[in-house]
């Protein structure tokens, strides 16, 4: 396997050829905030939190979807990037209806964690208070669109790991939302296998077990990587 070398914040690292900038930052021991990315799922670059500066380029690049190349020099924590990341998180909060106080994921929410990580103490953008609904038609699970940040982890895990492809993205702009089946109530989608992987990977309290009450949701976001390793490499890491 050939190896490429590049620098992250001035530190030289070597990663296998074909690796992403995210892998390079990890090799350098640098942590950058992530929301849509999940190991084991194909990266999509939806949340824009992992944007990095690449010397020689006048635009910011998402670390999760940008392939690393020989000799690249990237910067992960410039003032501009820190400000943009905080701004992106503020926009997540302003765009949905995120009421942590009684949320099933309170205290165990990746959006909360990221807000703390980027130092967000308030939103500089006006809250939009969109009118969104809860779909609790499924016998076991429910999706609260108020808490959805459109990371599409549910779409990808259902398609790539479970192979059911229950979820997709519908509409555009501020009306963009996750749809079940052909934009049906979740409980009416025959393709759903009730596996609960979408619940496991949802970074917020958007998809949850119906019996969960405030702060009771447990995340299992490591499961896609475990399942992928088991399937591709026949390694059961959690045993």
């Amino acid at each position, binding site marked *: 396997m050939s190896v490429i070398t590049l620098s992250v914040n001035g530190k030289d690292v070597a990663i296998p050829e074909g690796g992403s900038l995210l892998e390079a930052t990890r090799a350098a021991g640098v942590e950058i905030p992530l929301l849509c990315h999940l190991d084991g799922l194909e990266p999509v670059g939806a949340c824009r939190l992992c944007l990095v500066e690449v010397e020689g380029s006048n635009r910011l690049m998402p670390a999760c979807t940008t392939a690393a190349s020989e000799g690249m020099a990237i910067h992960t924590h410039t003032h501009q990037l820190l400000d943009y990341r905080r701004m992106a998180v503020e926009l997540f909060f302003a765009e949905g209806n995120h009421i942590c106080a*009684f949320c099933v994921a309170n205290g165990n929410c990746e959006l909360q964690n990221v807000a703390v990580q980027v130092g967000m103490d308030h939103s500089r953008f006006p809250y939009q208070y969109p009118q969104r609904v*809860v779909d609790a038609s499924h016998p076991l699970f429910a999706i609260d669109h108020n808490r959805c940040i459109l990371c599409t982890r549910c779409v990808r895990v259902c398609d790539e790991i479970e192979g059911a492809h229950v979820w997709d993205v519908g509409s555009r702009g501020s009306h963009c939302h996750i749809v079940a089946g052909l934009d049906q109530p979740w409980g009416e989608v025959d393709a759903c296998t009730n596996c609960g992987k979408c619940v496991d990977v949802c970074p917020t309290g958007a998809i949850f077990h*119906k019996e*969960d*009450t*405030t702060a009771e949701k447990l995340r299992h976001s490591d499961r896609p990587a475990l399942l992928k390793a088991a399937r591709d490499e026949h390694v059961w890491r959690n045993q």
Partner: protein
Amino acid sequence: MTRTVVIDPVTRIEGHAKITLHLDAAGHLIDTRFHVVEYRGFEKFCEGRPFTEMAGITARICGICPVSHLLCAAKTGDKLLAVEIPPAADKLRRLLNLAQLTQSHALSFFHLSSPDFLLGWESDPAKRNVFGLMAADPNLARAGIRLRQFGQQILELLGGRKIHAAWAVPGGVRTPLSVEARDWILDRLPEAKATITLALGLYKTLLDGPLRKEQRVFGDFPSLFMGLVTPDGSWEHIDGMLRFRAPDGTIVADGLSEDDYASFLGEAVEPWSYLKFPYYKPLGYPDGIYRVGPLARLNVCDSIGTPWADRELEELRDRSGRVATSSFAYHHARLVEIVACLEAIEQLVNDPECRKSRVRSRASLNRNEAVGVSEAPRGTLFHHYQVNDDGLLTRVNLIIATGQNNLAMNKTVHQIAREYIPDPVPAGTEIPEAMLNRVEAGIRCFDPCLSCSTHAAGQMPLHLQLLAADGQILAERRR
């Protein structure tokens, strides 16, 4: 020309209110109104949410007694699931409510009301508070604060936090009582008992002396009283059946189920207050005035069921009558209830059932409508939910204790104003602050939680206005 006195804001209560005193052209008091001026709309914005969230959502109505909403929502959730909760969960919920009653009553007595009794109605308003009490009687203030802490700490030991612990859930509770928690409670119980002994002794001395008049004029009028009782008629705070007792001691209605609340309780509205006016339906509005809360609970029950509390209850009845009709007796009733709570807490923490691990029954939705009830520190609390087949709320009705005392609070303010305001009020007369404080204190007897009762937010200042017949503000005082 008629005039109106306005007390705005009312202080040392939870929430935001104002009082208006309406005078006729000759300066005679013709009407008083206790206005609750805040609105939050919980009943409306809960619609569309999963019923499993209601314990978490409604607990946020209030930071003083979130446990009451938590328990009532969990109980309503039990009924929607159509499950029986494990015996351990039932006892642990009781323990939680007893701790809540203790801390809230301690707050009402020591922090909010005792400055009036101990420092005097005419004392400097800037010092007539818990800080003034600390300066005047540091040992009593410390003991009162630690009694409240005792209750608060039990809430934390059970639920993981003092305020807004989402520990009670539909089907039961999340965790049993730990050995460490039991030991802490048992360790601190003697101090809590000593504090309430001190407070009761002090309060009875005051009743026999400087507070003699207040017992007569602070809302002493006939009304019904409502509260939960056990099947054998004893004091109850979380389960049981509802009972109405008349001031002459007659039991007007007994064995009522919360499921039928709409058949015996109505909710009237007035254009000048966000707080509704619940009334006993068979007597109509406003004749169906009734009171709830600590005094009502002690009036409706036959006995408490623990020895020390029953002795104190007998003494209260000796002093104030079998059915105490003076709203000032709420203060005494709170102290007696703290005794009852401490005795019941001691019994529960020594009960091995509270340490059993099976504390939650699990089920999915089995009903579309349910009513839950519990006794909050300030009185009976109802939660009524209707849900669709997916478990999303389609209608919510919350009847809060303070709302049920609304008619009585208005009547109390009127009685105090009649007693302490000169009749007629000469034009241009300034109304003394101490008199205004007594009007406020009438409200404080009920320890109202206006943020709960209107499902409303905000500080709790007081605004008092003196209004002329044509609505002109003649005198005004704000704090």
